[in-house]
């Protein structure tokens, strides 16, 4: 089990509030992933990544996340199932500039995909299955694919369970596998798109009572651009 949160701000007036809005979201996902956590925040200077072991509350406090501004962020709380608990194994995985991937689930054929990537000269730095997906998407994008197309390629190449949230400097995209056992909920208002593993991570967002709430369908890429 892991927890995912993401926030893509459409209203620039909310940008100074990015960190303040994000911290309760990731803290709400503590029960889904208490061993480590990570965040990627995007502002006009680029993508900033924080990953550490411990509780989301402590990691956010140590890095002053609540006071950060920006236009987009993803967060992840990890309950490790298949590799060690270290900052390097924490999500998000950020294999190429401005790309961040967070994953809830497990890939069963990551070793095969890892070998195929190695033939292309792309090596992983950890034995984490999610890193393989991040590097796979990174390769597709480096080859000219749009993020949505790259995520559709994940459906062809990977076996296993996944809810993925992937961001670039301009895009915010969600994808679930064909069984969609790993939870996801998306809330959209005129001001933002927010995504989380469970609704209660979104419960404190402004205007949530009037947001359009959808549960992403299996094998469908949901994407927003700025």
């Amino acid at each position, binding site marked *: 089990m892991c927890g995912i949160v993401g926030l893509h701000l459409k209203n620039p007036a909310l940008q100074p509030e990015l960190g303040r809005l994000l911290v309760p979201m990731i803290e709400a996902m503590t029960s889904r992933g208490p061993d480590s956590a990570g965040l990627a925040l995007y502002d006009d200077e680029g993508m900033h990544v924080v990953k550490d072991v411990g509780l989301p509350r402590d990691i956010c406090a140590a890095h002053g996340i609540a006071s950060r501004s920006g236009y987009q962020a993803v967060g992840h709380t990890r309950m490790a199932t298949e590799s060690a608990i270290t900052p390097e194994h924490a999500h998000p995985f950020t294999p190429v500039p401005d790309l961040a991937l967070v994953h809830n689930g497990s890939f069963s054929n990551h070793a095969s995909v890892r070998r195929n990537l190695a033939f292309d000269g792309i090596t992983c730095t950890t034995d984490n299955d999610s890193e393989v997906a991040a590097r796979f998407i990174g390769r597709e994008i480096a080859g000219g694919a749009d993020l949505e197309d790259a995520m559709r390629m994940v459906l062809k190449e990977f076996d296993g369970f996944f809810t993925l949230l992937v961001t670039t400097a301009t895009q915010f995209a969600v994808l679930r596998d064909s*069984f*969609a056992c790993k*939870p996801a*909920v998306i809330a959209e208002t005129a001001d933002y798109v927010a995504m989380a593993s*469970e*609704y*209660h*991570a*979104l*419960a*404190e967002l402004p205007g949530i009572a009037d947001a359009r*709430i959808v*549960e992403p*369908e*299996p094998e469908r890429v949901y994407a927003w651009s700025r």
Partner: protein
Amino acid sequence: MVALNEVGAEKAVEELVKVDLTTTSVRELNAELHAPTARRYEVHNPRGAEAIAVGLHDAVDVEIHGPAGYYCAGMNMHADIVVHGNVGTGVAENMMSGSVRVKGDASQSAGATAHGGLLVIEGSASMRCGISMKGVDIVVGGDVGPMSAFMAQAGRLVVCGDAGDGLGDSIYEARLYVRGSVASLGADCVEKEMRDEHVAELTELLARAGMSHDASEFRRFGSARQLYHFAAHNSAAY
């Protein structure tokens, strides 16, 4: 609003107890509901919290004002529970009796493995609605997602809107009624004739659920009984 710790050890029967989940924990709420001092409860500010009003076994009325999280009203017996909002995964899972009404939408696995009672979802339900249902009646005002009624064993699932892919996969003896389109049927699920007794039971179910549709607008689906019935001609293979 009465705080739970003010209800008192005497267990005086209150007419209505209001509980605010910003000041009372779900655990405290459920402990009160398991040994109720009142006939009626209102729950405010649920903010998507998990396991609200789980494991009730008394005939109390519970109204939840706002969105509820996972497993809301799970394992219910006898209680009548209304959620004025959306619910997360597994609403009314393993319900035995009583009723659960959701005024909004429901996430995955609504009514999973439920043995009895009535689950009404006025909005739509996501994937795997009624998975492994064992006798519950489920009425959905909108649509249901893919893989609904998977391995459904008994009970009735009524869908007033459309059903997603793989409806009734590996179904046993539950009866499925769909008013709109069915994206595809799962293994061993087939359309069946709507006979008079089906129109009658569906009319009664729609009325209990407060839905105004005419039962004649629905189609019926059930098991082809090819998967789970032992075929005598295969006996030599064992």
